């Protein structure tokens, strides 16, 4: 997976270099000329910005993908859990004044809410087709957003990054926000931890086996429904921490989960539903694609990820890392 990700990055950088050195008078079209004039250093910084942007998407999509892969639940409340994470973080920070504590507390709080939601609301719906949990989580997202409006009000709340992560550092290609570097690092740590847990621990083995054949796992005397509950808790916890990590970069408002839900779905579709490496590569890819489109054709920036999705779906309908037939 890292292999192809690296290749992609090299391709993007190489593409930029190629365009940079292209003979200018060979092209008359003005937008392309502007595009050629962009210095390589700006390209690099723009790509890096895209990676930070993608990191939040990765965290969201990993949870979404995990839940879909294991439970076959399309979690429309994922954006709401992201919002809950941001508000829980502001709340914890207000109580303790400690940002770092939030990194531990938020996934626990949101994950616990996730456990309860799975146990009470989702469990009765298993075996009834994919649209039941879909509608339930869709409705749940409205309830959660309005509950937040009632508890925390409709006006946004502030949350600042801790002092040590404020400001920008020179990373060789220009000044880059320290907090966003931290975000990339945090994403790598969280995803690696999750991967190790799933691939290297015995509980991870049970989860993977449960995804492949729940009947056999049950016959072996393992409580599969508990496994699913844990998976839902982990997935929502990841959404929660994504929300918390995003909070210092934007205003914490009840509606903050709505746009990211769409992006997270695009990422899971591009990466392949249910694939962890797919979520990582596609998340970063969508971030970088958006960032570069902003630079060369800003009016298309919002459409960029959908364009990417269309191309991927045409070439590989199951997504970059998806398995054929998962949705059937």
């Amino acid at each position, binding site marked *: 997976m890292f292999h192809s990700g690296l290749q992609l990055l090299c391709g993007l950088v190489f593409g930029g270099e190629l365009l940079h050195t292209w003979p200018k008078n060979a092209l008359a079209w003005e937008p392309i000329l502007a595009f050629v004039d962009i210095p390589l250093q700006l390209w690099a910084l723009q790509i890096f910005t895209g990676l930070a942007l993608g990191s939040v998407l990765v965290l969201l999509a990993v949870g979404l993908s995990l839940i879909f892969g294991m439970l076959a639940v399309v979690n429309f409340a994922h954006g709401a859990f992201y919002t809950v994470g941001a508000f829980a973080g502001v709340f914890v920070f207000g109580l303790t004044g400690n940002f770092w504590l939030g990194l531990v507390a938020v996934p626990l709080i949101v994950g616990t809410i996730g456990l309860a939601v799975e146990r009470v609301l989702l469990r009765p719906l298993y075996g009834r087709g994919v649209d039941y949990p879909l509608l339930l989580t869709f409705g749940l997202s409205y309830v959660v957003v309005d509950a937040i*409006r009632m508890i925390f009000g409709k006006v946004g709340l502030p949350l600042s990054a801790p002092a040590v992560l404020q400001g920008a550092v020179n990373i060789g290609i220009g000044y880059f926000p320290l907090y966003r570097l931290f975000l990339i690092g945090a994403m790598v740590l969280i995803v690696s931890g999750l991967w190790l847990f799933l691939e290297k621990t015995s509980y991870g083995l049970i989860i993977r086996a449960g995804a492949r054949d729940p009947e056999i796992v049950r016959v072996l005397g393992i409580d599969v429904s508990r496994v699913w509950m844990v998976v839902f808790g982990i997935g929502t916890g990841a959404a929660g921490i994504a929300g918390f990590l995003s909070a210092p970069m934007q205003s914490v408002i009840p509606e903050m989960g*709505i746009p990211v839900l769409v992006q997270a779905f695009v990422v899971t579709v591009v990466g392949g539903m249910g694939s962890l490496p797919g979520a990582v590569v596609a998340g970063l890819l969508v971030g970088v694609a958006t960032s570069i489109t902003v630079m060369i054709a800003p009016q298309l920036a919002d459409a960029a990820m959908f364009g990417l999705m269309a191309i991927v779906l045409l070439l590989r309908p199951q997504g970059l890392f998806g398995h054929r037939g998962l949705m059937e």
Partner: protein
Amino acid sequence: MNRQSGRNYHEGQARTSRRSVLKTAAAGATAVAVSPFMFNIARGASDAVRVGLPVPLTGPYGTEAREQARCAQIAVDEFNAAGGLNGRMAELLVRDDKLNPGEAATRTQELIEKDKVHFVCGSLSASVQLAVNEVCKARGVIYMSISQSDEINEVRDFSKYTFHEAMNPHMTTGPVGRYVFPKHGKRIAFLIADYAFGHELVRGLKREGKQYGIEVVAEVKHPIASKDFSTFMPQIQAAKPDVLFLCNFGYDQLNSIKQAIEFGFKNNMQLVVPVLLYTQRLVGGAAYDGVVGGTNYYWELENSIPSAKAFNNSYRKLSNGSPPSDYGAYGYSGVSALLAATRAAGSTDADKVIAGLEALKYDKYKGLQYFRKCDHQSVQSVYIIASKAQAEVKNTYDVFKIVHSEPAGEGILRTCSELGL
């Protein structure tokens, strides 16, 4: 009964929050962004003086819109407490235009045709304003616009029914430019909300900048209600400007400032927000340190202006002591002016009230104002404010200091002939 109708909006707010869970659960697929807000939906007594207020209660400008609704209600309450129009009470009908011109046109049409409002006041985005203005013009209803627009003063959109209580981008950017350009440098970058408001601010600043010999080194447009601004920052950084103008509004303003600061811009350039919002500053906190901008109002004007003190105190009674905001004040002043002219005219007849507004000299919150005859632009003072550093802040609301002001005068407006009038 009269007092009751005057208080509808506040009661409505408390009542609906309890209902909202059920409502939203039932709302289904309509729209997640729909807020549970249902202001004054009930129709009032048939002889009431009705003012319709379409504003974007939901969406990125929601904070400012709710302020406007709240302050407009104060104007209505004051009018009623003073006896109304020979005993006829005023009533405010608030609607959510969702920051969408189509939605706003529909809501305005309903307000005029179903609810029989006598006047319309409101809107928070140029394209929405123009849509509301079209509907009002066509039906001969006075429209009091309360957010910034240059276009609404121009001959193509102006009509005798069109009044503009808010400042416009031209009169805002003039004073802002005159304060900023000599002080902070000539290399200028713009981060622009990609719609009429953003474009008009840039146009005004460039026009003002000509005499200072400014050089525009970057012009980056962002879509309205962007969540992430980081992708716009590398280009601005690479251009190495002395000043970055953030020509946007609402949540966009706060988010873009926060992210500009993340990139360390504060060390290298002056951040200027032509329409610097009090509401966003309250949420933004320390991120705003040292940010400079223009405004129509800051509550500290109460130290020198009696009407500001009176307005602040009315607002404080309803808000646990917090003072009103700049955009809230437009809602108050706009509706107050309409009702004052109605009283002067002794009637709700549009032509008589227009004459009343044209003759009106009013001081509702910031000193004397009047509507210029040719374009119905409210002539008013303009303030330049700087955000205080956290260390200087004495209380939650003590966020700005007024560093410069330009008095009310037609000199800061475009001439009537320039507007084609």
